[in-house]
Every structure is written in structure tokens, then in C-alpha cells.
């Protein structure tokens, strides 16, 4: 290195002058936020979690306020509208009350099959001309046109003898087109080649008495036989006994959400107390307490559910909600207790706890100020994950018939009923299953968001 002999003119003493003192220091810190404000701030940034929160709020409103606006008895059966899907055609004609078909009708003037009265969903009365050599007739109904020599559809019954050439069909009549066939049988009941087939348009019909019973017709509105009226509206359709799906979903939500919120709240609370006690006291007490928790984990849930049902004196046909909650509370707390204990053990050894203790903090202060707040994230997350699992447990238990007693509905029991007719009326399974899925998903996503938001370590990374 060589020294520059002549000094740089810029470094002459005259080049230096003190600058003016700044009035304020540039702030680098963020606004001071409490733990909760910060958590809420981060939760708000999580769009999925906020959407889930709104869905949960909407579910609660649906459950609590829904029945105030939609005043339909969830147990009332509308046998006229069994398994009707959402948006089914509701117009219906009032007809005479059903009377057994006593008099033998006159045969049709032309050879073939005819109807003896306008065909309605109350009854379809068929009459046909005698066929040669027939000893009996069998009547069929089909939903697709009958092809030449093809299958005739569903056998409804036989007329009983060669002299009886009429038949009354009342079996599960649906409005629309049906293809009826009459097949001649020989004396041994074997099919003869002679067949009459006819396309018949079945009108949707209700008797005046039934219309009055459903309050579709009032005494003073002057409606009578032959008038066109509208069925009661079922926005989400009806189930296999004609019960309103919307009302049942609301009732089911009450049961499902009640269990889903009450049981986890109690057992998480107990788990927190138990786990923090074990963790804080430590040593032999901790060992004994946690081995007891392990013992409880080993107990079979379903068996205890049945035991409690008997112990509570709950007979058949009564609701099993209470034993279900008790079984959940008694058997499901150890998971929370374990988590909280682990967390407390960890927090107990932190430097700030030791510092607080050296500064003379009492046990109460330590637990309330340092331990619990630092485990709060874990607790809240356990709770939000316990809720969907409780809803699922309820659904499962109602599904196997251990839960609510009919006619009370829960989402689980509705799914169980719906699955039997999944192929012909999918809405009966789809709607309650959708409700379970949405609710469980919403609670899970909210729990996910809460975990991120409440984790204090995440704070520094943003």
C-alpha cells in the first residue's frame, strides 16, 4: 500500500459541518397489538377460515332461527308426496273420495284394454275385453313403452279368474305416463301369447278430505271436486314418509350441533384442567394421572355408550342423546389432557417462567398468566377439531340406531334412512350428507386457521 502524498481536497476540514438534528426517530415497530388482537388480525387474513366462520354462523342461525320462519312439523307425514324431489310439480286436482270398486264395469266396446274411470294417482281402474282361452289375467305396469314381445314391466297382480276382466291399481301411483298391460294366463298360471297394452296418462289427484287434512283447502274458499290446487310447498322435497326435508334438516341440525358443541366443550375443559394439573405438578402424581388417562383411552366407546343407555334407564324408543353426551365426556377427554400436559411441561421449563418465579410470582399467577395463555392455541384447536368429530360420532351412532329415537331426526339418522333409497330419490341422502360435510369442513378449516393465528411463533415471520 502506498500513501498518497498530496491530501484529497474533499477531505479538507472545511468540508465537514454538523447536520441538523432530526426531529423524530423513524419508527420501525408495528402498532402495539395484544395477543388476541394479533391473532384476530391474522385470522382475518385467512380467507378460508373467515368463510368457514361465516358458514358456522349461518348454520347456527339456520338451527336457531330457521324453525321460527319455517313452521312445518318435521314429523308430519304427507303420504300424497312421498319422496318427492325438490322442485316437483305441485299442481293437483281434487277428486271424489276413494270408494272400493264394487260393481263390475262394462267391457270396452272395442277389443283391448281401457280405463273405467279417469286414471288418477288415487286409483287406476282398468277393464278389458275377455281373451279366448284365458283362465286368469295378470296386470303389468311399466315406465317405458312395451316393445313387441318384450318385457311388460312390474307385475301388479292377477284378476283372480277368467270372469273378472277388471283390475284396480293403487300401488305407488305416480303422476305421468304409465304403460299398462294385461296378459292372459292358462289354468296352470303360465303365460298365453295374448296381451293388451295401453299407454295411460295418470293425473295427480287428491281427495277433498286429504286436502283439508293438509290445510291445502280451507272451509271458506269454496274449492271442491274438480278444482286445481297446489300441494304444500316442500322447498327441499320430502322423505320416504312424505315429511318435509327442510324442517327435518333444521331439527337434525339442532341435535347434531347441540351434541357437536356441548360435548366437546365439556370434555375439552375437563381435559385442560386434568392435563395442566398433571403437567404442572409433575413427578409421581403426573405419572399416576397420565396412566389413568391411558386407561380411559383403552375403554371401548360403543360398549360404554350401550352401558350408559342402560344405566340411565333409557328404554327403547327414547332418545339416546344424554348417554351419548355422557359417554363422550367421560371417554374422550384424555386426548386433550395429553396435549395440554405436554404443552405445560414444555412451558414450565421456559426461561420467562423461571424468571417470573425468581421475581416472586405465585403459582396462581404463573398458571393464569404464563401457562394457560401459552397453551391456549392448542386448546382452541383441539376444541375446533373435537366438534366435527363429535358431529360425526353422533351421525354414526344415529346411523346404527343408537342415537335419536324416531320421529326425531338428526343428520346421521336422516342419512341412514336416505341411503336405502339412494338410487331412486338421491336427495334424501344427499341433503343431510351435504349438511354434515359442510359443517365438519367449516369447523376443520376454522380450526386450521385458528391454529395458525394463535401460534405465537408465527408472529415474527410476517
Amino acid at each position, binding site marked *: 500500500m502506498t500513501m498518497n502524498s498530496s491530501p484529497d481536497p474533499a477531505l479538507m476540514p472545511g468540508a465537514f459541518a454538523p447536520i441538523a438534528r432530526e426531529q423524530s426517530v423513524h419508527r420501525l415497530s408495528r402498532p402495539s397489538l395484544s395477543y388476541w388482537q394479533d391473532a384476530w388480525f391474522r385470522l382475518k387474513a385467512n380467507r378460508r377460515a373467515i368463510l368457514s366462520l361465516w358458514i358456522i354462523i349461518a348454520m347456527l342461525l339456520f338451527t336457531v332461527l330457521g324453525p321460527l320462519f319455517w313452521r312445518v312439523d318435521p314429523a308430519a307425514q304427507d303420504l300424497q308426496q312421498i319422496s318427492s324431489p325438490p322442485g316437483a310439480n305441485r299442481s293437483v286436482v281434487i277428486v271424489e273420495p276413494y270408494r272400493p270398486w264394487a260393481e263390475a264395469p262394462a267391457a270396452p266396446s272395442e277389443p283391448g284394454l281401457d280405463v273405467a274411470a279417469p286414471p288418477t294417482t288415487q286409483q287406476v281402474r282398468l277393464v278389458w275385453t275377455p281373451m279366448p282361452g284365458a283362465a286368469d289375467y295378470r296386470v303389468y305396469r311399466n315406465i317405458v313403452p312395451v316393445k313387441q314381445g318384450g318385457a311388460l314391466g312390474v307385475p301388479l297382480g292377477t284378476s283372480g279368474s277368467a270372469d273378472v276382466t277388471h283390475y284396480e291399481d293403487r300401488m305407488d301411483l305416480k303422476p305421468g305416463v304409465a304403460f299398462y298391460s294385461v296378459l292372459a294366463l292358462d289354468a296352470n298360471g303360465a303365460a298365453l301369447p295374448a296381451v293388451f297394452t295401453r299407454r295411460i296418462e295418470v293425473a295427480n289427484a287428491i281427495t277433498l278430505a286429504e286436502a283439508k287434512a293438509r290445510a291445502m283447502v280451507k272451509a271458506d274458499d269454496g274449492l271442491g271436486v274438480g278444482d286445481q290446487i297446489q300441494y304444500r310447498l316442500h322447498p327441499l322435497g320430502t322423505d320416504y314418509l312424505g315429511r318435509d326435508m327442510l324442517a327435518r334438516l333444521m331439527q337434525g341440525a339442532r341435535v347434531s350441533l347441540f351434541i357437536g358443541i356441548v360435548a366437546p366443550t365439556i370434555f375439552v375443559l375437563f381435559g385442560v384442567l386434568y392435563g395442566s394439573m398433571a403437567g404442572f405438578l409433575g413427578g409421581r402424581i403426573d405419572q399416576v394421572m397420565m396412566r389413568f388417562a391411558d386407561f380411559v383411552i383403552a375403554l371401548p366407546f360403543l360398549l360404554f355408550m350401550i352401558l350408559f343407555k342402560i344405566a340411565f334407564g333409557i328404554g327403547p324408543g327414547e332418545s339416546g342423546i344424554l348417554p351419548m353426551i355422557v359417554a363422550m365426556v367421560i371417554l374422550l377427554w384424555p386426548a386433550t389432557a395429553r396435549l395440554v400436559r405436554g404443552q405445560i411441561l414444555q412451558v414450565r421449563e421456559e426461561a420467562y417462567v423461571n424468571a417470573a418465579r425468581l421475581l416472586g410470582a405465585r403459582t396462581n399467577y404463573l398458571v393464569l398468566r404464563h401457562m394457560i395463555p401459552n397453551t391456549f392455541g392448542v386448546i382452541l384447536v383441539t376444541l375446533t377439531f373435537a366438534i366435527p368429530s363429535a358431529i360425526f360420532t353422533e351421525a354414526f351412532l344415529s346411523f346404527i340406531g343408537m342415537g335419536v329415537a324416531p*320421529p326425531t331426526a338428526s343428520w346421521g339418522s336422516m342419512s341412514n334412512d336416505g341411503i336405502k333409497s339412494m338410487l331412486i330419490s338421491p336427495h334424501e341422502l344427499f341433503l343431510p350428507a351435504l349438511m354434515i360435510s359442510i359443517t365438519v369442513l367449516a369447523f376443520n378449516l376454522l380450526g386450521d386457521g385458528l391454529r395458525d393465528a394463535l401460534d405465537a411463533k408465527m408472529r415474527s415471520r410476517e
Partner: protein
Amino acid sequence: MRTPGQQLLLLGLGSVLAIALIMALLSWASGGSGAGAGVDPETGTITLVLDTEPPQMNSSLSADAISGRVLGHIMEGLTRQDANNELVPGVAERWEVTESGATFWLRNDAKWSDGKPVTAHDFVFAWRNTVDPNSASEYANIMFGIRNAEAISAGKLPLTALGVTAVNDRELRIEFANPVPYFARMTSFSTFYPIREDFYRSTQGRYASSADTLLYNGPFVMERWVHGAHIRLVKNPRYWNRDEIKLNVIDFPYFTTDGNTIINLFRDGKIAMADIGQQNIQEAQLQGWTINSFSEGALFYVEFNHRPGHVTRNRNFRKAIQYALDSSEEVNRVIKIPGYAPGRSLFPEWLDGVDDSFRKEYPVREVSPDWDKAREHLELARKELGLERFPPIMLLTGDSPVANKVSEYYQETLKQALGLEVRIDVQIFKQRLAKMLAGDFDLVMAGWSADYADPLAYGELFHSANAQNRGRYRNPEMDRQIAIARTSTDPRTRMDAFGRIQDIVVDDAVILPEYERGRLYVVDPALSGLVRRVVGFDPDFTYARIVDKVSQ
């Protein structure tokens, strides 16, 4: 380096290929295990579904329909039912039934599957086994028409006192306790099948537990029995009437009751016959299958508990429920299965009277539903019982989908019509029977199918001494009519008695008939000669044969 997107794509493609490969391997493996086409004309094989593993294959103890169905193909009694359900000779070539007893003469060419002849002693051994109190057969009571059977079954007499003797190898003589005019028909029933004593002893208590601990004398023998998975019956080359048997193999490689599985198997041509449940009716119509219906002959009814301490003991209470419920609405709108017929009488439609069907000769008194009358009767019952409010009514029911639906329908209907609170007690079959026996119900949804084709099978149900009278109904007039029906040999006198029993059941509301169960089923067009029957094992493939599909 690939981008993460490409990696994901490759991973996805790779797993799809792997799954496809595994599925192909699996289907190849299952193809090798023997489950072939539903009807195979080359080997004379038909493939079918069995509901479950047969619970009891010992014919002298068996009481269920599944075991009965298999037993019916591999065993033969003294008589059997032919393709038209007529009674034809089986092991016996002729017989004689009198008021005091019956004699059967056995054919010379009836052989066991090991080649030894079937003798009268084999029947004596099997029948004694049924009434033996140590074997505790559920069907012992079907033998009670035979002298001393009841006392032996109660442990009061030794087995040798049973009124059945083998006069020689070819002649079997039976003494009756009371006249049993339908006895010849009863001997086609599985409880009356023979069992050979030396073979039974050689199995050392494991008789009928596997394919080789059974000895066969029927049209088929069991070649393979993988418990819980597979039963295979093949034609018996030693069966006396082997020329009439056209099928070579009846294969049951599937044990399931799941309606959708069965329909899928049928659609894929894997099985020759399938039952159609309510959810598959639409599918069957769209597929263009020829649907058959068959009335099983079983009557289902609501039985009241007539024991003291139950409100259902009160006649007006029962009448109120009778007027409130509507079996026609129940069948047509709630159950919705064509083939089910609304129940009206204790006696199902298929029973024969003197010349025509019983129900045509003795029309039942119709009770049409009338809620006003129902409420009047309920008011009377309230006064008679001195009750302010009726307690909740316990409705005991089974766990089938139909039972669930119907019980909820009853619950709501009785609430609407009469303001009664009904609690539904759902129990599995065994538990329901136990509760019925213990009288732990107010209403129970019960069913009865006949073991023999005589109205007495239903008529004697509500005799005060009948163990099947679960509601403990007692009525001296009923008992008197049953006594007439049991002992009289004049058909007209018996049918008159049944007619009066039918009236008592309606007037006194002893039970409420719900429905007569029917079934819808589809059969592969290449299979013909399938027999369905109300009494005896069903369905019967003994006389079935495979026909050319083209000639149809």
C-alpha cells in the same frame, strides 16, 4: 429438472397405471376362483346367490329357510313336492294315511351317496333325534302329531316310546296322537328327512358341519363348502330319479343380502336369478327384464299384548287402533313393493277351502278405516280403564327397512288419529322373539309363514295353550273352534270352524293383519323350470333346466 407440475402429472399417471394393473390382476385372480357365468349351458351349471351361510345343515334340527333351501336339493324325505307343487313319491313309493296312523313303503332303489340303501331305520333315527330333549330342536313341535312326541320332547318318556317303528327295512309305520290328515305332505318337509345312524355316529358330533360330514340321498350332493364363502352342489349319480335331473351343478359362490350387489351381479350375467327390492324396480324396468312376482304366503300382522297390565288388553282400545290403521294405504303408499298384498284376514289368500280358495268361500268381514269410530272406541276404552291419559305405547319391531318405515308410519298415524304416543323398540330378530316371548311389548309387528298347507297352520295360532300365541290371547270360544278344526275329519265342519275363527279375529281385534308378503324377482331367460312355493323349501331348482336362448 422437471417442474413441480410435470412431476405431479407423472406421479398421477404412475398411480393410475399402478391401480389399473392391480385391478386387472385382481379380476384375473377372481376369475380363476370358479365364479363363472350365471347360466353355463356347456357344463350344465347355474350360479346363484345365497343370503347367508346356512346356519344349521342337520336336517333334524334345522329351522331356517336358508338351510332348508340347500337341504331341499341334497336330501329327500318320504315324499316330495313336484314342479306343480303336487305331492309325489320320494323315498317312499307308496303310503297310506288313516285316522290313527300312517304306513310308508320305501322304494328299493333309494340310495345314500355312499351306495348303501335308505332304510326305514334311518327315518326312525332322524325323527327321534328331532324330539330328543337333549338336541333341543326348534321344530320338535312339528312332530307333535306323532304319538308320545310331546311327552318325549318334555323329557317325560324315553326316545324309544316315539310312535314311529321300522317294521322292516322297507316299511315305516307311524302312530298318531290325533288325526293328522295332511301327514303325507308334512313328510316332504326338511325336519322329516332321514339320517343314517352309523354315519351320524362316525362323525363324532360333527355331523353336518362340513361337506364330508354329511351323507346325501337327494338329487344333488354337496361337493364343496367353504364356510362363509362358497357352496357347490353337483348332481348325485346315485339318486334313484337321476334321469329327471337336468342340471349338473348348482353353484353358490356369493353369500350376500345386499340388493344392489345382487342386481349388479345379475346385470353382469354372473347369477341366474335375483330378487328385486324396492329401489331396483325402476332399474329392472329400464333394463327390460321380465319381472316375476311371487306371493310367499307369509302373513305379517300387528299383534296386541293381551296380558294384564297392558292397555291393549282392552277390546275398545284394540278396536280404536283397528279403525285408525289402513293396511291398503300402508302397502300402496308406504311399503310400495308390488307383490305385497294388503292384509285383511288371519288366513292368507293362498289357502284352500273345501272346493275353492278359503277366502272366496269365507269372505272376511271388512273393517274400513274410520277415524271418528276409532276415537269413539278410544273414548270408551279411556272410561273402562279409568285413565286420564294413555301411557306411551311400546311398538316392538324388527330391523328391516320395511319394518322401520311401517313403524314410523304407525307412530305418526296413531298420533294424528288418536293422540297416542308410540315408542318404537327396534330389535334384531332373535332379540325380538325373546321380547315377544317375555311379553315385553304393547304392540309387536310379527309374521307367520305356514309349515304345512292347511288353514290350521294359521287357525291355531291364537289358542290359549299355543306357545306361538305371544300376546297370550285367551278366548274359550276361540279354543273351542280350534278344537273342532283339529279333531274333525269332515272338511266342511273344519272350514266352518276356520270361518268363525276368522270372524273372531276381526271382531275382537285379536291381531291386525298388515300384509301378505310378496317378492319380485328376475330369472335368466336361459333357465327354465324354476319352482317357487309357499310351503316347503323355496326356490326349488331340482327340476330346472338350461334352455337355448335362441329358441325363446
